[in-house]
């Protein structure tokens, strides 16, 4: 079995979450590689969409910007941010990838500030399209590094809506029914959300990691079912695709 690094593990785990014949909002970085990998394995008809207007590029070369020319190279469509976000509002976009500095048990994300908003301790880039993606896509997949400072009981600033404060809260706030956080992919584990409580739940461990380790790196109580699966390691074929075809210059991995 081939050796692999953390980025490669994240990419492979993320890739496996996406179903074929769906449209998926992609940002630069890991989500892009995950989409490219999914397309080359179990989801050949997965459609990568970029919020500034590119839909269905060949991803032959990896984009360096969400509006860059590679997001619409040999694409079906090169339109606009309004067009894409409105397609999401109409229910066309199944998945959206998100990241952030902090996540809480309900999948709410902070990508804005630590500390007081008007005089922050740390200023992050801000929502970008994340708030829209978290509002309008059916399912969001968060990709994070695990750690207590990142997995917090309550985000310091709620940039992007997860399940807010629990069941029914999204609908009450006016967000589309049936939408919301779906998966959290980290270097330690794969998590989902409990149907009833809408709280984060451990689904599977990354190879060699224990549930205790995951809980220890999580700043809130994680729902841990009795039997937790273990993710398959990245296969030789996945690693070959990643290294030889998708990111041969190792810009991201």
């Amino acid at each position, binding site marked *: 079995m081939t050796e692999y690094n953390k980025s490669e593990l994240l990419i492979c785990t993320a890739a496996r979450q996406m179903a074929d014949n769906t449209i998926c909002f992609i940002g630069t970085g890991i989500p892009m590689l995950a989409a490219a990998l999914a397309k080359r394995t179990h989801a050949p008809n997965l459609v990568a969409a970029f919020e*500034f207007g590119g839909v269905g590029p060949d991803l032959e070369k990896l984009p360096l910007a969400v509006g860059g020319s590679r997001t619409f190279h040999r694409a079906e469509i090169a339109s606009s941010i309004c067009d894409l976000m409105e397609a999401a*509002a109409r229910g066309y976009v199944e998945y959206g990838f998100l990241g952030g500095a902090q996540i809480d048990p309900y999948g709410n994300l902070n990508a804005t500030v630590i500390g007081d908003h008007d005089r922050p301790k740390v200023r992050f880039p801000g929502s970008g399209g994340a708030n829209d993606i978290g509002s309008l896509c059916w399912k969001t997949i968060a990709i994070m590094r695990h750690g207590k400072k990142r997995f917090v009981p309550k985000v310091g600033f709620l940039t992007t809506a997860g399940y807010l404060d629990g069941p029914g809260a999204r609908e009450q706030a006016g967000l589309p029914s049936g939408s919301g956080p779906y998966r959290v992919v980290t270097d330690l584990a794969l998590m989902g959300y409990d149907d009833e409580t809408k709280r984060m739940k451990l689904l599977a461990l990354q190879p060699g990691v224990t549930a205790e380790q995951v809980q220890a790196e999580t700043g809130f109580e994680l729902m841990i079912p009795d039997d937790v699966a273990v993710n398959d390691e990245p296969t030789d074929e996945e690693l070959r695709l990643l290294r030889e075809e998708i990111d041969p210059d190792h810009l991201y991995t």
Partner: protein
Amino acid sequence: MSNLASGRGALFQKEKVDDLRHWVRENKPKGLMSKVMSEQEAIAKFMTEGCYLGVELYGSVRCPMSLVREVVRQGIGNLRLAGQGVLENDLLIAAGLVKKLDITYHGYEVFGISPVLRRACESGEVETVEWSNAALAWRFKAAAMGLPFLPVRSMLGTDTFTYSAAKEIECPFTGQKLVALPALTLDVGLIHVHRCDEYGNAQIDGISGFASEMARASKRLIISTEEIVPHEEIQKYPERTIIPYYIVDAVVHAPGGALPGEMPYVYWRDEKHMNLYFEQAKNAEGVEQYVEKWVRGTKDHEDFMKKLGGAERFEQLKAQATRR
């Protein structure tokens, strides 16, 4: 409805639709007339201290960087700024010209957080109000539609809403909760295009980002262009005119105007130069040196292009462009 929330952020730009209509009637040129001028003229003529500015697309893609550098050269300050930004807004903040920022995303994408933004916000130098990317585009769209607001389904339930200047409303038909976004009109909009005629009828290749909406939301619109083409070229494919001449105030011929960012199908980004910037941006002194050398230290866009490596470098970047 008493249970409907309002964002607590300030409305940095206040314009009444009816006032704008009158302004447009008095000030915008409706006939065909040549609007070709230099960066210097366009910026000096239409930008004023304290004006509200918007720049499209991102700093690293199809962005009117030659115009932005000219704003820095002329030192037009106290700006209010709309933005998702990479190099363009970063440069304006680094040069100390920005007071207020309607922020959506401001960072270096795969290169991470902007230390320039961090310093400006953490010191309190720049005041921010929060929006999402689509919300900002929709605010332009509201203005482009001649409306004081648009309802949307983003930002609901979040601090992004709370620290915005939006309001919650109820749909008059369904009763559902929506966010009402106030229209955003720019005093000056800057957009870089692939080609246009001397009157300003402009075409963009590839994604149009939010160019269509922002252009229509701009009181004064300055476009820079890779190429000025004969009017007949525009008339041959009128469906390609994404920016109509009647909303354009100035046309600036700026080949390489998006550098160091990319211009889709024309040239690839100057990765070396961008890395240089990101490196120097790490501290205040570094970025000040960058601005001194590359912006204030260049007379105009031609001079900047020369410093970047002249025709030879430009040809290299053109050769690396994404092809159709």
